[in-house]
């Protein structure tokens, strides 16, 4: 089979921001975005880790605003497409205009996979502003394949250009990725993108499984930075794609250099799979909860795993970081 061109979306400066608690400086953003641009990454995603307007007490106060982040990146990018992430219910149309005015070329409109219909308004606004629009479905592990396909078709009907499927909890096994991506690729006409988390150590393997099933775009981050146990390590992915014979625009050596020379020195700790991260993948919990769980476990003197299990019992979804405090408070009260 001919192997088609695989496009890469680097989200070191968005999902990866979780790993630095949203503390990237403008200088760091310029260097990283500039390096990624030279390494011929197709899309570079930049904004608060939780999405545009994620600046909040619950998700974390960033070092600089979305606007400052986006314009810093824009000043360093020549060819790659500067991309932002919008979460309906958190971000608003004002954020789309701001992003566009500061140089964004593409936007990923992100909803929980069952809540696709909250994206209609923002997809239309972004399309009208001339942005490339990705539909971004989170937590695809929570739905049976046939339901996932229906929501994917609904998203496509809104006029998106690409569809991203995210294993936000990093809990899918390669065969499960294949089933989901394969079914969606067969059901929609737009190119399909896959976003992995590494909580079970499967990010690279699952990304290959997604390509095998027909995905043509993949997400990743330098050094695998990201929520939970991180994303697909993009410089590794570039090497793996090359070795597997896939075509991609990315310059493997230059990308390795960005990861080692620019990103590595600024990260506070290497991205590893610790026990709580592993539990998040095992239990299928939203990856961004990890660092908040650690804080709550310290504050309330609880085992992080207890909190994670209870979050799972309560079926909390992405964005409900606020209820980690509620869970910890109720667990303490019950003791």
């Amino acid at each position, binding site marked *: 089979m001919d192997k088609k061109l695989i496009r890469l979306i680097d989200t070191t400066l968005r999902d990866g921001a979780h790993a630095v608690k949203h503390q990237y400086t403008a200088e760091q953003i310029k260097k990283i975005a500039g390096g990624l641009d030279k390494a011929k990454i197709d899309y570079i995603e930049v904004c608060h880790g939780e999405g545009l307007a994620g600046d*909040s*007490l619950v998700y974390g106060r960033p070092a600089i605003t979305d606007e400052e982040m986006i314009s810093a990146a824009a000043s360093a990018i020549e060819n790659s497409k500067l991309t932002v992430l919008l979460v309906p*219910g958190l971000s608003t149309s004002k954020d789309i205009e701001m992003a566009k005015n500061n140089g964004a070329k593409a936007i990923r409109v992100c909803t929980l996979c069952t809540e696709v219909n909250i994206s209609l308004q923002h997809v239309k606004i972004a399309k009208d502003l001339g942005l490339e629009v990705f539909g971004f479905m989170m937590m695809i592990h929570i739905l049976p394949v046939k339901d996932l396909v229906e929501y994917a078709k609904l998203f496509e009907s809104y006029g998106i250009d690409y569809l991203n499927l995210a294993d936000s909890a990093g809990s899918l096994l390669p065969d499960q990725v294949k089933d989901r991506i394969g079914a969606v690729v067969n059901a929609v006409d737009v190119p399909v993108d896959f976003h992995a988390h590494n909580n079970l150590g499967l990010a690279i393997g699952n990304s290959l499984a997604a390509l095998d099933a027909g995905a043509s775009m993949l997400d990743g981050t330098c050094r695998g930075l990201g929520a939970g146990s991180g994303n697909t390590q993009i410089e590794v992915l570039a090497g793996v794609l090359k070795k597997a014979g896939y075509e991609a625009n990315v310059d493997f050596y230059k990308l390795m250099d960005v990861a080692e020379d620019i990103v590595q020195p600024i990260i506070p700790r290497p991205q590893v799979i610790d026990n709580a991260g592993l539990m998040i993948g095992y239990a299928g919990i939203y990856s961004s909860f990890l660092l908040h769980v650690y804080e709550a476990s310290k504050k309330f003197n609880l085992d992080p795993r207890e909190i994670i299990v209870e979050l799972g019992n309560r079926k909390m979804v992405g964005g409900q970081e606020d209820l980690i405090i509620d869970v910890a408070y109720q667990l303490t009260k019950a003791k």
Partner: protein
Amino acid sequence: MSKVKTAIIGPGNIGSDMMYKILRSDSLELEMVAGVVESEGIERAKGLGIKTSIKSADDILKNKDIKIVFDATSAKPATENAPLFREAGLVVIDTTPAEVGKFVVPCVNLKDIQDEPNFNLITCGGQATIPIIYALSRVAEVRYAEIIAGVASKSAGLGTRHNIDEFTQTTAKAIVQIGGAKKGKAINIFNPAEPPIIMTNTIMADIVNPDEKELRESVEAIVMDVQKYVPGYQLRVPPIVEDGRVTTTVQVEGAGDFLPKYSGNLDIMTAAAVAVGEYLAKNVF
């Protein structure tokens, strides 16, 4: 005292729930339910022996006894009908995002604006959280407040979903205007879990010199005020202070009049609307 006659326009889920609440009221009487087509809601009203109309605002305007109209349509018709009702001297209590009238949260600012012709109930997230922000800001300086409103997916209709941008921005605006915070942010989450989750809201605020005891007492007092019209309103996590930052969580269980109990987000809108009507019936009419 005779009851004040009212009408409901828009006999959908919200309108139907208000119908049951008004029928229970000791100060309001439901004179008419109006819609634009024959619908389940119109049938329901007929079954309860209430006059009905499918000519939108027309028959309400013709009826000389009606004093208060509860608008449960959607932003567009509510905006179009508002001047007609106003001209006819009818007070409108609006549950739509039309934002024609003044924002109202019954336990916070109703007394101050009781002579207004049109009241807007903001959003469900706003009704559920602004009392708490107000309780914080009446005892301390709130530099910033944010709310995270988590509701069951099943309780959020297409109207909310396709207007989520206004929903988010309106709530943030009211956190400042009515809640008294210097700056505000609203975050809305839809959770598809089965069985459906009960509406749960967290309020986080950045406060100058927070005094945990004082904040707690103020919040506990306002929770009791809200409970007068929303019995299922509960303080789940009392204000916790950490580094000048206050976190508190409230849960809203509905009364189960017409809508299921988990949809406290809808119940708090209908209950607040009827509470506004009852206050006006007792104090203004």
